[in-house]
């Protein structure tokens, strides 16, 4: 490899895992830098986990703290579960980037700054009275001041490009430098540049030069005395790609539609952080995927219900406030018992809240947010990868049980990425759909004995004309009925139908011993942090185990039994204690919550501390 040759007599240290945080202005291309580093690390065989950190403003004024855009990557030779609690290296293109991210840098960590970014104006915008690079306020860290802008400009000098264009290449210099430092292959980025700028040869040249300049700078300069090696991780063999939760979710839906021979219909209204599901699916028209940007969330879900009634696979995707608006219509879907998948990519709340931040606080809404008794199935994805699996599951359950399914994801896993072992389409379980066609003895609410699902008889089928609607229905016929006993019966059917799904889902799995001091019960995106914490604690001989729930309603049948075998039960959640409320009520176990509502994921270290505190008693 190119960069192997440039290694002179610098020493190389081997590390198990590293966290790098790239940060700069929204216009500095940090997302791009991060994703290139990701690809390169993936190809180098590391396991990894990434998370972008956008500003809430579309394009905040340059140099401000609220305009800082960041990207964190955690890569290693072992299994990587999270983007990292703290970073080892912070690449800061300006003072605001430094200021905002310093608190997440570990003690003794490395800072690489773009010297030219630390202008008096930028320092002021970031709220620094003096240049922090000049005093000893950063003495806890290893600081490297690099003339990134200047060196980039030097490298491109003879190309006669405008200064704006030159400035835009500085992120590739930084990237090159990091490639040198962590010994990454640069080819993937070189080919990417070629494709990206295929009609602008001058940009191919400029960016290529900037990248290489950064790489060589690492080699040549005396600032950097050490390179690091992070060996390939032991990953299951196969083809891989990097994937975010939202992309995985979209792919899971398309796959399920294909494997069930249904036309996917997505009704959606843009909302952060769910919009990407719409963006993704709207590209797949050659899969017979129809996407409809509705006038609002009520319209989005109502259209999806109409589509399901007509025999399509009705889907909608949204986030908290939009979810609230959909609840009345979801109640209708419960009553008319049609398949429907509602993906809720949770964000900080209440109300408009913190649209770009993550939270897990819509579980209650999913479970209970409808008028009257309107039970439905609730699933939660725990990692970007899992978004694919659970989206597929959501469809499978929705069509098999003729029920709405709410699939919970959140901003953290929706935008976070990790390597995905690409499945073979032919390996995916087929989903069988039977549209009844025999009018004899057809009754729209005659239920399947096992699943209690009613038949999905669709328009266009001869002699099966029938009517459904949101008024209580008579058992079997589906006619309107105000009869008291019938109402009780139907309420009970709807409840039991959902409960029976428990027979059709995997048992909960305990990671660690099946009895002991403490069981951590988690759900959703906290999976990575909890897993990291538990792994470390168990290495230290602590008696802790972990169950991670992906099926929240109904809960796995063996969950109660599992919990009764532990002295303490801890439920960490990014809310005020929603799952723990449900577990306490259902199993009467004294589960205690560990709750954080800050728009941020858990750190593994926070969890470790909490668990150790409990174990100490």
């Amino acid at each position: 490899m190119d960069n192997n040759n440039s290694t002179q007599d610098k020493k190389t240290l081997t590390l198990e895992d590293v966290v790098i945080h790239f940060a700069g202005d929204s216009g500095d291309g940090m997302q791009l830098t991060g994703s290139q580093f990701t690809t390169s690390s993936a190809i180098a065989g590391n396991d990894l986990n990434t998370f972008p950190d956008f500003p809430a403003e579309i394009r905040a004024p340059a140099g401000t703290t609220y305009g800082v855009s960041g990207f964190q990557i955690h890569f290693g030779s072992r299994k990587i579960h999270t983007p990292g609690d703290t970073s080892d290296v912070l690449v800061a293109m300006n003072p605001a980037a430094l200021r905002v991210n310093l608190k997440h840098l570990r003690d003794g960590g490395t800072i690489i700054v773009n010297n030219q970014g630390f202008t008096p104006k930028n320092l002021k915008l970031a709220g620094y009275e003096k240049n922090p690079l000049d005093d000893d306020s950063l003495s806890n860290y290893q600081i490297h001041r690099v003339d990134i802008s200047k060196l980039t400009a030097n490298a491109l000098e003879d190309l006669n490009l405008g200064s704006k264009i030159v400035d835009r290449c500085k992120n590739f210099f930084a990237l090159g430098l990091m490639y040198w430092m962590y010994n990454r292959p640069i080819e993937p980025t070189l080919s990417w540049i070629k494709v990206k700028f295929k009609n602008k040869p001058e940009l191919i040249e400029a960016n290529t030069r900037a990248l290489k300049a950064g790489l060589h700078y690492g080699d040549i300069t005396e600032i950097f005395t050490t390179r690091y090696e992070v060996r390939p991780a032991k990953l299951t063999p196969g083809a891989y790609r990097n994937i975010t939760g939202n992309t995985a979710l979209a792919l899971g839906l398309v796959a399920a539609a294909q494997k069930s021979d249904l036309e996917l219909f997505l009704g959606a209204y843009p909302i952060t952080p769910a919009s990407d599901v719409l963006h993704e699916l709207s590209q797949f028209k050659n899969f017979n995927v129809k996407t409809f940007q509705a006038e609002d969330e009520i319209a989005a879900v109502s259209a999806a219900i109409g589509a399901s009634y007509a025999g399509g696979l009705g889907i909608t995707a949204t986030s908290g406030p939009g979810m609230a608006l959909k609840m009345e219509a979801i109640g209708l879907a419960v009553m008319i018992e049609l398949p429907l998948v509602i993906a809720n990519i949770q964000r900080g709340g209440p109300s408009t809240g913190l649209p770009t931040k993550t939270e897990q606080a819509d579980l209650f809404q999913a479970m209970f947010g409808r008028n009257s008794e309107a039970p439905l199935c609730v699933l939660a994805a725990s990692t970007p990868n899992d978004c694919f699996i659970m989206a597929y599951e959501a469809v499978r359950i929705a069509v098999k049980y003729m029920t709405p399914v709410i699939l919970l994801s959140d901003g953290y896993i929706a935008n976070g990425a990790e390597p995905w072992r690409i499945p073979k389409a032919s390996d995916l379980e087929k989903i069988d759909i039977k549209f009844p066609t025999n009018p004899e003895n057809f009754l729209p609410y005659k239920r399947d004995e096992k699943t209690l699902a009613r038949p999905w008889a669709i328009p266009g089928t001869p002699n099966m004309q029938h009517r459904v609607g949101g008024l209580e229905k008579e058992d079997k016929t589906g006619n309107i009925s105000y009869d008291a006993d019938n109402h009780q019966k139907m309420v009970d059917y709807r409840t039991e139908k959902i409960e029976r799904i428990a027979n059709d889902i995997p048992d909960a799995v305990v990671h660690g011993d099946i009895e002991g001091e403490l069981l951590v019960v988690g759900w959703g995106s906290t999976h990575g942090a909890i897993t990291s914490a538990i792994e470390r604690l168990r290495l230290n001989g602590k008696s802790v185990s972990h169950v991670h729930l992906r099926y929240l309603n109904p809960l796995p049948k063996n969950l109660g039994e599992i919990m009764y075998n532990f002295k303490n039960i801890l439920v960490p959640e990014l809310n005020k204690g929603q799952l723990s409320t449900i577990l306490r009520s259902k199993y009467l176990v004294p589960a205690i919550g560990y709750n954080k509502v800050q728009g941020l994921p858990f750190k593994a270290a926070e969890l470790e501390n909490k668990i150790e505190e409990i174990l100490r008693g």
Partner: protein
Amino acid sequence: MAETAEKEQKKYTAKDFQSDQDVRWCPGCGDYSILAQAQRVFPDIGVEKKDIVWVSGIGCSSRFPYYMDTYGLHGIHGRAPIIASGVKMARPDLSVWVATGDGDLLSIGGNHFIHACRRNIDIKILLFNNQIYGLTKGQYSPTSEFGKITKSTPWGSIDYPFNPVALALGAECTFVARTIDRDPKHLQTMIKAASEHTGTAFIEIYQNCNVFNDGAFFHLTEKGKKENNVVVLEHGKPLIFGADNDKGIRLEGFTPKVVDISNGEFSRDDLLVHNENNKDDVLAYIFSRMTYDPDLPTPIGVFRKINKPTYDSEMQKQIHTSIEKRGKGDLDELFNKGETWVVK
């Protein structure tokens, strides 16, 4: 399939469209007539029963789907146009109809209505306008006249009514018509005309709620009154009305005026001639404005009928184009998009 429909259709009579459900409107309700006319017209619209879906919201009028022996979806309040749109988008092969009330469509459902119009999605919307909330027992509605005294407005309502035809025009609806429950023939003609339109078709039907708003339209329906108060719009024909066809509408500037054509001062040739397909739909707009003018008759008939591609057909087209260009979607290809690598 068209052929089958052709064959099938011959067999249908009005009775074939009667479902097995008891009709439960108040005795005397105008909804009965609308149901009867629909059942009479449907054998002639050239669609098999199995391919028809009626969607509704909530209200007396929204019970309609239960009584038609087609597929039916009794939705939630206000959402019929968008549920119907979902049906149509998923299955452009179906003939999709909406039965709705003035509260359902214009109060809670106003947004879905105007967006359906804008999109020109191929659904037919029948508005049962009784100028009152029937099912909730008599509150005023967005089409009730100013000052209306109802349970919720004991001192009289203080908001101005919508003019549903004007609203539909403002929202770019491609087929806009009005008719009356007590004029069965005209009602039938309008339903038929809607069935023949490709795109969003909107029919405002004046409907008598004999329990909570009895007589709201008697001036348009009762012998001795209706002759002077209703003018029928017919494409290509002058606007003539009156018991002896003795009156007509003339335009002075933009202002329609009633003139006498029996005394020789004006003749048929002086009258305004209707053109449904008027591109700028200024004519339709002028007619819509006649509605609440006490000096002018109320127009019924087709106000506007123009053609442009429908949302559902465009959606289908994109699917086809995409398949043509990219080939039928292949999951493995999709999964492997972007940068991939192999771990051995």
